[in-house]
């Protein structure tokens, strides 16, 4: 059986050179639901309008086959016969006529397309109202007398009037309160199931879209970035854009703070050449600016990325390290494997002596492991003095626990922050000054003359740790390993440092490994948590799952020990 909807190479260009859709292809079977998500301006609504034939050549090109019939270039009669009865669209805000009753407007398509008698149409309208859980008594009212939720239900009744096979819901839930959202979601799911409806849900409300549709498609700048099963696309996004989009959305299931997507969506009149996301992507390379990535199969879904999605930044396999203490061996690491993806923030937690610091020193090339290997961006990282390994170490930086130890007491702030530049070949006094000022600014420190001349003993722990951070960022690393960066700071300094870390992570597309024994800190900043105990990984999972229900005994202990405000409830006097 042919697909209900077959869109191929759909392009829409509006006057003024606005490229709204830039070669879109997908298909939808009968009874299937597809969620289309993306930021405003991604072309979602244009797509919806094209599917109901509202946008025609010469603006549109390509092909939209609905139930075997071509919509692009179809005459008005064909379109009219298809609209409402095969495909119906529920717009973001349905244009109700303010001077006619709701019931009359729901009955209107029935009377027009099916030539029903007025009474018959009214009876059918009441049936439809019941189906969408709208009190039929409300049909006599005027649109402005209904609540937002009721108007949406009336819209749906209208859309369903001619028993379409495909319903397009354009931002079906925007502006509604959570209770109403929930009711509507449940209602639609059951109606779609009952009627065998195919649905296209257009939304930037990710959870709603995910709940309604088993398949999802992520759009950006008029193109598909990623498409596949919702469980894959929304839960384990592969494309850097989908990943950023999911991270920007507040949901109860993540404990982490919101992360905006850096930069702005491109101007549809001037989409950059190559990959459209290249201006905001964190893993961009030359090829991204030159060649357009095809939508290709990767990791169980379709991804439009030259690298098949997010790259793996760091991977460590089977690390072993044994120290000697008084002649007795201390096994610090016993076969630890660990990885960090592009832009990912990983929390490394464990009790004292679990090997966290040893691991972080090995990961950053400060210490050589006895066994196993560390790969950074695909090439081996070693602790040797050789030039090649030294250059590579600049890509990954360690922020140490003790800022008083990590910063030389002999140097002034400017020398401290600028030190990585002295080592690297990129010199120039004015360039160096500008770079130092920029980095100090990024970590929220002044770059005035007096501050630049200050020395370690004149500054607070929080300031010092931010200076250490600025110094680490000076080499423009891809990955930052922070070993208990806040353990020596007071709560207010800690909060500041964490906020800065998170912002920098977005702005610079940094991968982050946050080493801590404090679950409360880790859950605010990281996507994933790795629990280490006695030199072994005992748990590895998404942060929100971990903090809600840790699987390992060590994890449970750490979560239980995490600080929480739990006011003691006074015994009630009787």
């Amino acid at each position: 059986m042919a697909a209900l909807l077959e869109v191929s190479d759909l392009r829409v260009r509006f006057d003024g050179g606005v490229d709204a859709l830039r070669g879109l292809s997908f298909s939808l079977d009968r009874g299937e639901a597809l969620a289309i998500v993306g930021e405003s301006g991604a072309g979602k609504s244009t797509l919806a309008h094209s599917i109901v034939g509202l946008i025609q050549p010469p603006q549109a090109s390509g092909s939209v086959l609905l139930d075997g019939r071509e919509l692009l270039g179809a005459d008005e009669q064909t379109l009219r016969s298809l609209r409402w009865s095969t495909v119906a669209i529920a717009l973001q805000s349905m244009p109700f006529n303010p001077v006619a009753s709701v019931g009359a407007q729901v009955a209107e398509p029935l009377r027009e397309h099916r030539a029903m008698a007025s009474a018959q149409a009214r009876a059918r309208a009441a049936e439809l109202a019941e189906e969408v859980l709208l009190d039929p008594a409300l049909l006599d009212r005027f649109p402005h007398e209904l609540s937002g939720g009721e108007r949406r239900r009336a819209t749906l009744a209208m859309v369903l009037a001619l028993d379409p096979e495909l319903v397009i819901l354009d931002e079906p839930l925007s502006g509604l309160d959570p209770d109403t959202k929930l009711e509507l979601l449940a209602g639609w799911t059951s109606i779609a199931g009952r009627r065998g409806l195919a649905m296209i849900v257009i939304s930037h409300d990710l959870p709603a879209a995910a709940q309604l549709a088993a398949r999802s498609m992520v759009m950006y700048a008029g193109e598909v970035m990623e498409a596949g099963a919702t469980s894959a696309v929304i839960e384990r996004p592969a494309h850097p854009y989908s990943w950023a989009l999911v991270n920007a959305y507040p949901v109860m299931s993540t404990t982490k703070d919101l992360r905006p997507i850096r930069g702005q969506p491109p101007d549809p009149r001037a989409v950059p050449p190559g990959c459209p996301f290249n201006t905001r992507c964190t893993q961009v390379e030359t090829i991204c600016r030159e060649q357009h990535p095809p939508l290709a199969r990767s990791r169980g879904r379709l991804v439009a990325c030259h690298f098949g999605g997010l790259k793996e930044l760091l991977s460590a396999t089977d690390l072993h390290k044994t120290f000697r203490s008084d002649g007795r061996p201390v096994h610090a690491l016993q076969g630890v494997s660990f990885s960090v993806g592009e832009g990912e923030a990983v929390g490394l937690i464990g009790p004292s002596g679990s090997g966290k610091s040893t691991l972080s020193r090995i990961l950053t090339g400060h210490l050589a492991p006895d066994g196993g290997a560390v790969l950074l961006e695909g090439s081996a990282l070693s602790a040797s003095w050789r030039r090649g390994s030294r250059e590579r170490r600049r890509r990954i930086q360690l922020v140490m626990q003790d800022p008083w130890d990590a910063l030389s007491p002999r140097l002034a702030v400017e020398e401290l922050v600028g030190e990585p530049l002295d080592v690297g070949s990129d010199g120039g006094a004015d360039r160096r000054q500008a770079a130092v000022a920029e980095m100090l600014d990024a970590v929220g420190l002044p770059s005035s003359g007096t501050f630049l001349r200050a020395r370690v003993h004149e500054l607070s722990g929080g300031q010092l740790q931010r200076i250490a951070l600025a110094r680490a960022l000076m080499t423009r690393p891809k990955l930052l390993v922070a070993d208990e960066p806040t353990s020596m700071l007071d709560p207010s300094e800690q909060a500041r440092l964490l906020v800065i870390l998170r912002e920098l992570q977005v702005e610079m597309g940094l991968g982050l490994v946050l080493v801590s024994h404090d679950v409360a800190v880790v859950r605010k900043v990281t996507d994933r948590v790795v629990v280490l105990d006695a030199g072994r990984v005992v748990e590895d999972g998404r942060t929100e799952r971990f903090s809600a229900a840790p699987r390992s005994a060590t994890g449970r202990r750490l979560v239980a020990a995490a600080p929480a405000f739990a006011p003691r409830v006074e015994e009630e006097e009787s």
Partner: protein
Amino acid sequence: MRREGRVFLWLGGAIVAMLLLVALLAPLISPFDPRAIAGPSLAAPSTAHWLGTNDAGQDILSQLIWGTRSSAVVAVLAAGLAVGLGVAVGATAGLLGGWADLLAMRVVDVFLAVPALPLLILVAALAGPSRSTVILVIGMTGWPPVARVVRSQTLTLAGRGYVAAARGFGSGWLYVIRRHLVPTLAPLAVANFVYWAATAVVLQAGLAFLGLVDPTEVSWGSVLNRALAHQGIYFSEVWLWWVLPAGLAVTVAAFGLALLGVGLEPRANPRWRRA
């Protein structure tokens, strides 16, 4: 502490600078050839001979002025030898670690067990009390403690987070030595240099006092030695311008260097600055 430290530094510095100037300008400011017989034997101070003459009729002031030069040469060379060797051995041991460190430190232990003055007396007595012998012996007994301190400073530095950080952003070992090790060791080296210079001045004079001195050489020690060897030196007033000024010269030089050392202490030790 800060202000007193500065006073010590200035006072010590002034004394040492003055002595160095005298040593440098000896041929110009010395009124007579220190070896020449310039007047009557054992003359009292006069306008011609400010400090009188000795038993051989040589001008005592000229001898002290030329003696300053001798002391300065011994002090600089002996201290330079001790500190140079100490820094080299200590830093190398600290940086290399392992068996090199072990070996160096055992050698240091052996040398530390040897007392400087008796060794000096022995060597001077056996090999002859020439100036180079004195320099060599002071240098060879002086380097082990320097090496030990430098090694521990180097080890501390190597374990510091900022050195690890420097390695982390790709610096080579030459950079670490230039940027971090040298500034750490420099004040330490200077303080040790001053200490061993003072020790050398006193030891050189001490040897001469004991009679282990090259009688042809003009130095504060040889002035003292000759004066003390003179029969009945304390029966007349001669000791006032023969023994006393020479002893005073040694004392002032040692005192000046000691003050300088105390004044430099805060610079050698960064923890002093933080307090």
